[in-house]
């Protein structure tokens, strides 16, 4: 168990007051008083003076802490701030340090911070502030994939692929397809890298995002922006090779996500709608890569993805609303919870509507039939989430939405309406009729 202790020394009227805030599981806090011995100032831990103090250090432990030579308690310059970390190794005595008058009688047991918990020892870890590791190929790849949010980018590329396939009226052009997919992936990775660059302090506030490479300081901001620049330019160049319309869509998606959605997250709850548009554009991009125009079918696909974002994101944000509130994010789950749960349900129903409309133009009726149970279950989970919004129902809805989207896309592609084949059928029927008429 790690106990993180942070000493903040400060001027008070008596110049002696110092405060140690220990962060541990559960919380502990001590107050300490300076006194001067020789050339150094020694901190003495005392009981916390807070009414709500939950500190778990017993009087005996405080005595032991005071009797120790833990670096935490020595502050040669009393007006400096220390961050010292405890972990589960034994403290090693510091021979250079001015030793206190009292004999050094620390033992393993005496240094336990919390007798109730597993062995925790106080340790002088002033060296724990680690230098930033040099980057090698392996870590570089790891950080780049984290910057590009590989899973999210993968999903975006998948939706683009489905858009391309659904819009395709000619045989597959592998060059165009590859350029579209790689271009979209690179553009999406660039957008997420810019987003992470701009969001460093906000990401550190939330558990979900606090292990991103920029937050941890593993790579510099310039490096991340360089990555974003290179991948963005390459991606857009590839997309413009496909056709200008796709490139324009890709560029506007990049700008929308990085420079409009990202700041809006703290400005207004409408950011969710903007984010939904960001999610809807990739399949339209795939469509335009195949057809070079945006028609009703493309818009329908985009609408399905637009509506899908709401049950997906609202469920995700439900569990994180405490952290969102503290970090200053304005999300529906924080400020308008009723709107949050209603929107999720409303858009789940809209997905069913769009799927039905799609059966008239884009797909055959088999899609309407086999997507029905999948869509209905989404509506059912959204309804349960609305009726009883809590951690469990939101998690179920979120995880199901991750299954729902690929399933719908797959079924869509399977049931793609092929006008050419039906025309061929008509011709062969006519031919056979004529041949029959000819023979008779």
């Amino acid at each position, binding site marked *: 168990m*790690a106990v*993180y202790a*942070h000493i*903040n*020394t*400060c*001027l008070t009227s008596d110049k002696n007051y110092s*405060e140690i*805030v220990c962060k541990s599981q559960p919380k502990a*806090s001590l*107050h300490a008083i300076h006194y001067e011995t020789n050339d150094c100032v020694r901190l003495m831990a005392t009981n916390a*003076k*807070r*009414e*709500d103090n939950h500190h778990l250090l017993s009087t005996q432990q405080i005595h032991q802490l005071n009797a120790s030579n833990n670096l935490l308690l*020595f*502050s*040669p*310059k009393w*007006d*400096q*701030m*220390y*961050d*010292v*970390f405890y972990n589960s190794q034994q403290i090693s005595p510091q021979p*250079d*340090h001015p030793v206190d008058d009292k004999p050094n009688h620390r033992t393993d047991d005496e240094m336990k911070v919390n007798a109730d918990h597993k062995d925790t020892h106080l340790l002088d870890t*002033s*060296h*724990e*502030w*680690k*230098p*930033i590791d040099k980057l090698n190929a392996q870590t570089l790849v790891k950080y780049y994939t984290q910057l590009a949010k590989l899973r999210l980018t993968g999903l975006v590329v998948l939706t683009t692929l489905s858009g391309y396939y659904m819009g395709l009226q000619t045989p597959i052009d592998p060059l165009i397809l590859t350029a579209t997919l790689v271009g979209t992936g690179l553009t999406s990775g660039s957008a997420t890298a810019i987003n992470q*660059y*701009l969001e460093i*302090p906000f990401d*550190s*506030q939330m558990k979900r995002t*606090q292990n991103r490479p920029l937050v941890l*300081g593993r790579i*510099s*901001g*310039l490096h991340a922006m360089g990555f974003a620049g290179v991948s963005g330019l390459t991606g857009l160049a590839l997309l413009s090779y496909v056709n200008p319309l796709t490139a324009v869509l890709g560029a506007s998606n990049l700008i929308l996500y990085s420079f409009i959605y990202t*700041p809006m997250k*703290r*400005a207004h709850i409408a950011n969710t709608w903007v984010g939904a548009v960001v999610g809807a554009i990739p399949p339209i991009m795939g469509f335009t890569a195949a057809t070079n125009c945006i028609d009703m079918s493309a818009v329908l696909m985009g609408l399905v993805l637009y509506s899908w974002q709401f049950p997906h994101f609202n469920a995700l944000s439900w569990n994180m*609303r*405490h952290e969102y*509130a*503290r970090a*200053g994010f*304005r999300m529906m789950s*924080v*400020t308008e*919870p009723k709107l949050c749960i209603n929107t999720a349900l409303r858009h789940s129903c809209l997905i069913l509507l769009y799927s039905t409309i799609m059966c008239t133009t884009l797909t055959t009726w088999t899609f309407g039939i086999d997507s029905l149970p999948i869509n209905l279950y989404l509506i059912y989970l959204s309804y349960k989430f609305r009726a009883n*919004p*809590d*951690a469990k129902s939101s998690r179920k809805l979120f995880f199901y939405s991750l299954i729902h989207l690929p399933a719908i896309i797959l079924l869509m592609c399977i049931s793609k309406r092929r006008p050419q084949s039906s025309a061929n059928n008509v011709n062969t029927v006519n031919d056979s009729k004529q041949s029959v008429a000819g023979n008779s």
Partner: protein
Amino acid sequence: MLRSPNVALNLLAKSLTASTQWPIAGTAVLSVHCHRCLSGKPATSDDSNDHVDRVSPTGHPVSNLRLIHFGRPANETPPERELRLKRSALQKWNHEYWLKNNADFQRQKSDYIERELKALRGQEFKSSLSYDELSLFYKSFLDSNHKKHMNYNLEWYRRHTSLLWPAFRVLLIRLRRKFWTRN
């Protein structure tokens, strides 16, 4: 430097006591006496540690930021020094903002919870159950702090992106140092 951490930690520690709340102006004197406040290393560390950037192993308990100690190498050129000072200043400003914001949030949240408890007259309160009441608090917190948050956002974007060009210059300097001065 120690103003806001001090005030923030004091707020945390003394939220329910009647001890003196230090005025922000009065604690300005602290910054004069404190140097290397965010360094996290005691003065007894030797200078060889000072040459590299170091990152704290965990996020700060209040501000949640991973603080960086910016190392000063021996052959530091003026652009490098300028970048280091700028990064350091930005980190300090950022850290103080989040210290204050998070401490305010926790304090207001516990005040709110205490008020609600008093209203319910001693009923057991579990923060995870009463999301309705908490959401009212969240909304009021976000609304009352909206302008402050927006100002912080714009300031943060501006200052953070203004680091890019100096960082690029430093990158060129370091590349030159690595590849050209060997000749």
